[in-house]
């Protein structure tokens, strides 16, 4: 049973987070944003005035191009994501429940399952910026909700880890690495571009699927399959480290994060193994 004051606070928190994650920042939001020092201080300003064009362009970059905000993208092995579970809408609905004194337990429980990879992805896509701080506030609010409800947090049940047989082609690897529920992390366009850039292998433009395919094709063309796979492995290792840090910052959600951490490390190892198999002597 959550007390009325906490529900009021949660309703205000979710009531801000939902719309801002959905559509960016508007002047109406500023009063609430200023309640959190770090958020207010990271809003971009021009001559002292908040630059709404700048912050909303960043919103588009982060949520339009890099990080999916759908539950299905993380928890569905088929990557079937409907708009209905976009995180902004989920949070707005949770705010509505809290406002009328109702604890949205089911919505909260589902959100906890994928909050770790979502928040870590946002942090990675927008380090040291407003939306990175917003992801921190989101995690802290969901954690506060857990503590107030005193509900145990379960480990997130993920799909089977990937295995590649001799007959499996590039498509199987691409599918595995693009599915968070299988590989344990959301590889963003930025992740892929950085891996390509580090190894001087072209990734081209387009969807994640296209750029990852380009990256692996290009790696084969330039005899760099092993080094590209190792660089991808390093990336999964780094994401696992981020999960660890995130779990330490939000201990009440650590159990949910643990399965994501383990899977990301497992993927890193599998990629290392694969790199050894394809290395050119």
């Amino acid at each position, binding site marked *: 049973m959550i007390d009325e004051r906490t529900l009021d606070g949660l309703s*205000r*928190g979710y009531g801000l987070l939902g719309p801002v994650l959905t559509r960016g920042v508007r002047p109406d939001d500023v*009063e609430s944003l200023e309640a959190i020092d770090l958020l207010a201080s990271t809003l971009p300003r021009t001559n002292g005035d908040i630059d709404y064009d700048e912050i909303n362009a960043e919103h588009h970059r982060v949520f339009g191009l890099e990080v999916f905000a759908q539950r299905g993208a993380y928890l569905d092995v088929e990557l079937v994501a409907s708009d209905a579970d976009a995180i902004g809408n989920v949070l707005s*609905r949770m705010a*509505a429940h809290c*406002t009328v004194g109702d604890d949205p337990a089911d919505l909260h429980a589902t959100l906890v399952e994928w909050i770790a990879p979502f928040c870590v992805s946002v942090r990675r896509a927008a380090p040291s910026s407003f939306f990175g701080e917003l992801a921190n506030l989101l995690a802290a*609010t969901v954690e506060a909700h857990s503590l107030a409800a005193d509900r145990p947090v379960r480990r997130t049940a993920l799909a089977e880890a990937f295995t590649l047989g001799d007959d499996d082609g590039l498509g199987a690897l691409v599918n595995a690495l693009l599915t968070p529920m299988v590989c344990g992390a959301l590889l963003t366009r930025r992740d892929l571009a950085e891996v390509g850039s580090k190894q001087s292998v072209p990734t081209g433009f387009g969807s994640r699927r296209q750029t990852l395919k380009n990256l692996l094709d290009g790696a084969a063309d330039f005899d760099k399959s092993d080094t590209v796979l190792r660089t991808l492995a390093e990336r999964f290792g780094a994401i696992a480290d981020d999960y660890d840090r995130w779990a330490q910052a939000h201990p009440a959600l650590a159990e949910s994060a643990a399965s994501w951490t383990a899977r990301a490390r497992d993927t890193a190892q599998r990629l290392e193994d694969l790199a050894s198999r394809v290395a050119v002597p």
Partner: protein
Amino acid sequence: MTDSLIDKLLRMKKPRIAAPATGQTNVGGQALPTYGKASTQPTKLTVVQHPDGRMSSYPPVERWDDWVEWDAKAWPRRVPRHYTLVPTVCFNCESACGLLGYVDKTSFEVRKFEGNPVHPGSRGRNCAKGPATHNQIYDPERILYPLKRVGKRGEGKFKRISWEEALTEIGEKMRESRKKRRDGIMYHVGRPGEDHYTNRCIQAWGVDGHNSHTNICSAGARTGYALWGGFDRPSPDYAHARAILLISSHLETGHYFNPHAQRIIEGKEKGAKLITLDPRLSNTASKSDVWLPTWPGSETYVLLAIARHLIANDLYDKAFVKQWVNWEDTLAALAPDEEKTFEAFDRLLKKLYDEFTFERAAEESQVPIERIREAAEIIGEAGNRVAAHTWRSASIGNLGGWQVSRCLFFLNVLTGSVGTKGGTAGNSWNKFVPAPYKKPPPGDTWSELLLPVEWPFAHFEMSFLLPHFLEEGRGDIDVYFTRVYNPMWINPDGFMWLKSLRNEEQIKCHVAMTPTWNESAWFADYVLPMGHASERHDLMSQETHAGQWIAFRQPVRRVAMERAGQPVEFTYEANPGEVWEEAEFWIQLSAHMDPDGELGVRQWFESEKNPGEIVTVDEYFEHIFEKSVPGLPEAAKAEGLEPLAYMKKYGCFEVKAENYTPYVEAGGFGTPSKKLEFYSPTMASWGWSEQAYTVPWVLDSHVSRKHIDVGKGEMLLLPNFRLPTLIHTRSANAKWLYEISHKNPVWMHPEDGRRLGVDTGDLVRVETEIGYFVDRVWITEGIKPGIIAMSHHLGRWRLEDSAGVNPGTSNLVALKEDGTKHELNILKGATAYKTFDPDTERVWWEDVGVHQNLTHAVHPDPVSGAHCWLQKAMSVTKAKSTDNYGDVFVDTERSMAVYREWLAMTRSAKDHSPDGTRRPMWLKRPLKPTKKAYEL
């Protein structure tokens, strides 16, 4: 922590929770807004068939009168905006692509421009320059009212006057001049953007006064094509070609760039091979199957080596050559003792071109022999489907550049690819120019300032030498109109222009008709604001493919207002400020020049419908559409429209969907012999009788390898390429385009960079024949060693911080002059500045390039009259400690000396004319005077 977080959250506003939505909701359970006028039904879009499937859907024509879109700026609110879509024609290059202006039905603001899907040339597509028209019409620095100089010339002091004052004062000056003489009024056009409207006006004034930019653009290529067949440009059918041969960067910047580029790619997708000659790794070169980075001036060696391959291996189309080429005249001139049979001509060809081996071509061009052979084999296997083009590039770069197009078209002739499907036609076969309203008779005057006797073959006016002629005392000008033209900036040797534009004895009255401020307008007596693409009426057609079309440029706000029932008498009532258009201006000015009809001018501008009154633009174009465009009245009638209403609705009309080998029906070509003239009797009889001038041959360029001694520090400066998003001087008024490209570093090969000890970003001083400039270096393997390249169109400048060219796109400069010595130094680069447009405060770039053209000596080709743009860099060195970025120095005494050196190469009609005339009558002139005027 938890408590403190809840405390913080409690300081936030309470969320506004909407009552449960009723009716239709979105997936988040929120009620959807309802808008009365916005249709939620799917709209059937016009589908344009493109082979590659891109950009194929457009608003259907039947919805153009009321098209609804959400207002992007109101996002995330869904605010519907109602637009009336008005077709018009882009004005930002010569291609004349179709645009659709989205005009808000409430405010008549122009929201955006997209492609016109029914335009046969561009087929709904545009390059970046088309949509950027929006930048130009909302440019905060644009000239909105007619201005008259009140200080000294060049002082920058102007006052606003009314259009009536401008018309009266300028009309009076024209009247005075016309009464005294027939060569005192000169119209000098940069971007024509119309077909023959103004020419008709000049003819009506009874003067020889048409001047153009052609001799700094296409004169070389025109001359070569004209000598072959009477037409002066090629019109390749790229989409159906098997081999495409380009001597220029057509995919990004060629003539008719967008319509051509899409068809080149179509051809490639169907299997055509693309061959490109360019010393620079252009976008086109990078897309080519065979890239031949030839040393400038050696292109003819490569082309003739390909010709030799076809001739020596009997791969050429003998039946075509026998039927259409003047081989009998050739034999008579070059092998008079041979029997008059085609077999003898075949032997002559084999003998003539035997010296042009692949080895020689490889040596001259410094291109691997295998690549030249590969190109020749591709041409040899293409049958009569060789689409070839040269524009600007080598033909306008080199002394003798006209032979580049002559040699290139030789390949079309040898393969029989002349006007065939997949071949190369003459421009005039595919460009449709209707007869005008009331055609005045030709004049009987010849202006020596336009086409002096030294250049009887010039294509066309010797425009870039105007200040040199004035300096020599060859004449003066009473009223000088510059129209979308910035001669001091765009021409070589700009300080010579500065001298003339300042000199009120040489140019007594300068009227700058321009949509934007420019360097030359600063020195004008009147500055008259003229409209951009969406603010004017014009007719245009271009030879974009094997077909014919005509397009109607319209002032979109005026049309939108008229559709809404608001009558507009003159276009400036609908345009921003009092920006006008030439079409109406010329009519009114001509009437003011001759108010009582005494000069015989007014009659050509009087209405046929309302005798005694001045014609309106509607009546003018209505007349043409009804009487001079075959098929248009019938097409209009089928829709229940008058022809003018049809053109206002669609903005274009397809006259012929396909047009192949029209010379068969016409009975030959536009030469005196009606044949394709391999051997040119005209050249021979006008003093150019050597073989190198009469048949396709090589000529020694002023920058061939033997003239550039790299060991001495000399290099070749290639300044005649442009970046794809630039529009000569008007890109400085298009913020989107300038954000994309705004600087012009010196391209330099790494080998040269090492030799000179410079790296990317370092300053170098480039010395030309008449001065020097200082620019940064860009080290790249995209340019051949020994050559430096630098894009034109950049390095804009202004003399006052608060006036002239935009602060965000130009350098503030100091101009120092000491006798014949001129110096330009940058005080500061581009800056952000505050206007009603917030984007002007977001200008993040400072470097807007270096004005190199000031330091170019004039190089008039003695035959074509083209300015040969390639420059001999006398030295390229690491900049001195006293040199600053953008420094320019020129000595105009040297300018005149170099001019005289080139003048000495000419062969004057006075000495060589075979019939006492100034120019072969059969060659084109934009405005041909009477035969009598041709007499010396």
